[in-house]
């Protein structure tokens, strides 16, 4: 049984209009996507800003109202619990946020920040709690002396590590990581990515890794979901997507990754120009008349692409 199964998820945001502010239309932020995450797997969700990738992440943790579809966690539909007690789900699914400056309460000490999920779900004595927090901080490479400090005393990378310690406090099974390293410098980014991998091995965690950086995704993820206009254009493993991309949008995305080798820059440019031209020529064949992405079709066991 998969850990998480998302079926035909739809999240529409209403557009209000008229004097009575009635809903006149919808923005289809997520328009019918399905995917599964197995225990211990890292699934990458890639797309441009506005493609709906963060909305998927939010709806999985229950922060967005669904228009349609279902989300099954361990085979149980969590959407019917909205507003009710979902404690096993709440414990099992945690989130790591992009902005490390706004996601930690500046007025609370690290001890309180990391202990908050423990206080919500476990009854620990003060000493036990402190011991647990120190353990959690040690996992992300921070010493116990840091527990009494405030977030502003830390650098961006350290803050993200506090965010990770907090997310793993309840031993979750799934972590939604929404652009966890986009705001970080290269060397710090490497550090945080390494920690995410180590914690994954230690706790057999699954990640839904949301990112626009295809370099990071290639390093982190087993299975990739490429998103465009609220739908998936292509899904597959690393090899399917990076070596054998079929959808014109995926090809354009991959051509846009800058190459860290200066000898390749002219080649890369020619490739980009060619793919760009291809995109203009073939646009009509890859999208329906109203610009919608087609339904996914299976090419192999792992590889799916949205073509008519």
């Amino acid at each position, binding site marked *: 049984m998969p850990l998480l199964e998302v079926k035909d998820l739809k999240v529409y945001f209403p557009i209000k209009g008229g004097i009575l502010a009635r809903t006149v239309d919808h923005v289809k932020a997520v328009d019918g996507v399905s995917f599964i995450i197995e225990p211990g797997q890292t699934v990458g969700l890639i797309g*441009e*800003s506005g493609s709906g990738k963060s909305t998927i992440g939010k709806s999985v943790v229950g922060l967005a109202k669904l228009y349609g579809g279902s989300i099954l966690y361990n085979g149980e539909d969590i959407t019917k619990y909205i507003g009710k007690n979902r404690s096993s789900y709440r414990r099992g699914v945690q989130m790591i946020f992009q902005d490390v400056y706004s996601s930690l309460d500046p007025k609370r000490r690290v001890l309180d920040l990391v202990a908050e999920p423990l206080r919500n779900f476990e009854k620990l004595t003060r000493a036990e709690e402190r011991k647990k927090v120190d353990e959690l901080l040690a996992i992300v*490479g921070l010493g116990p002396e840091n527990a009494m400090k405030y977030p502003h005393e830390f*650098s*961006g*990378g*350290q803050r993200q590590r506090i965010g990770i310690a907090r997310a793993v406090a309840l031993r979750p099974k799934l972590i939604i990581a929404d652009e966890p390293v986009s705001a970080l*410098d*290269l*060397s*710090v*980014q*490497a*550090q945080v*990515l*390494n*920690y995410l*991998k*180590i914690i994954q091995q230690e706790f057999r965690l699954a990640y839904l890794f949301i990112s*626009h*950086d*295809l*370099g*990071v995704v*290639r*390093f*982190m*993820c*087993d299975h990739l979901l490429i998103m465009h206009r609220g739908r998936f254009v292509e899904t597959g493993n*690393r090899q399917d997507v990076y070596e054998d991309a079929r959808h014109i949008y995926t090809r*354009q*995305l991959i*051509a*846009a*990754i*800058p*190459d*860290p*080798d*200066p*000898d*390749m*820059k002219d080649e*890369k*440019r020619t490739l*980009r120009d060619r793919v760009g031209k291809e995109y203009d020529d073939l646009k009509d064949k890859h999208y329906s008349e109203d610009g919608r992405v087609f339904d996914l079709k299976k090419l192999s066991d792992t590889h799916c692409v949205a073509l008519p």
Partner: protein
Amino acid sequence: MSGNILEIKNLVTSFRIRGDYYAAVDGVSLEIKPNEVFAIVGESGCGKSALALSILRLHKGFYTKVEGSIFFKGRDLLSLRDDELNDVRGKEIGMIFQDPLTALNPLMKIGAQIEESLTIHTDYTAAQRAERTLELLNSVGMPRPGLVYGQYPHELSGGMRQRAMIAIALVCKPSVVIADEPTTALDVTIQAQILDLLRDLQRQTQSAVILITHDLSVVAEMAHRVAVMYAGQIVELADARELFHNPKHPYTRSLLESNPSSSSSGEGFLHVIEGMVPNLDRLPRSGCRFSPRIPWIPDDAHEADPTYRTVAPGHLVLCSCHEHFRFSDERGTSHALA
């Protein structure tokens, strides 16, 4: 002026923290040639933006002290009066900022913002200004330039705003363009478009571009020459090809190694540099500034007073510690976590 368009000599830019001044740029000397893309790369806090802003003296004077000299066409920009400098700003040296939404005026139409420089620096008539602006909007690849001319920044997408910024920087045909993280706020596909555009425009206009970035892949795509900055100093300077194929300084090599795009497989871990960039007021001011981050290199491998050494034509490296630096010396896997 020995063929250089811009010569920075021993630049020290210091910020005041609690009454004392601390140098964010600490003794940087650079020569920018005409018609080249010169990249300055480093992580946040290394002083690269402080350096870029010093060139046009855009720092707040109250908190900042800029010393040294910056020669542009035979004049020292740092000794010019403000009104003299205003003739250079925007006219001979253009600037592209990172975040187009905060850099553009939200209350002015795009066309008017581009024309502003022309009104100040040229005696074009209104019709000539409009013509030049439309021509420029076209050449920066703006879709529907006629419409955009009369639109406000909030009506444009991020990529289009960045194109408008580029148009503003280029409108007076400057001989130097400073681009401070021009694509950092953009999506990958838009980033690729903007980089291609900048490169094409640079080839057409033959102006020198100073590209400030933290992204080594962007450097590889764009630059002819590269300076790597760490803790206010340039630690390595070389041609782009030389730097990527034959990096010497431990910092440069570590940065290249920690880039997930270059280690393509998902196996193993990324290289991590031990410790962190020290705060400005706690920066060691003597000896090799990178030494605390490579503690396994013995002290006597560093120079007491680091100097630049030429390792190949045009390739300079600060301090002698690079001769002793090998990744294999790192202590086991625990180091990957430092």
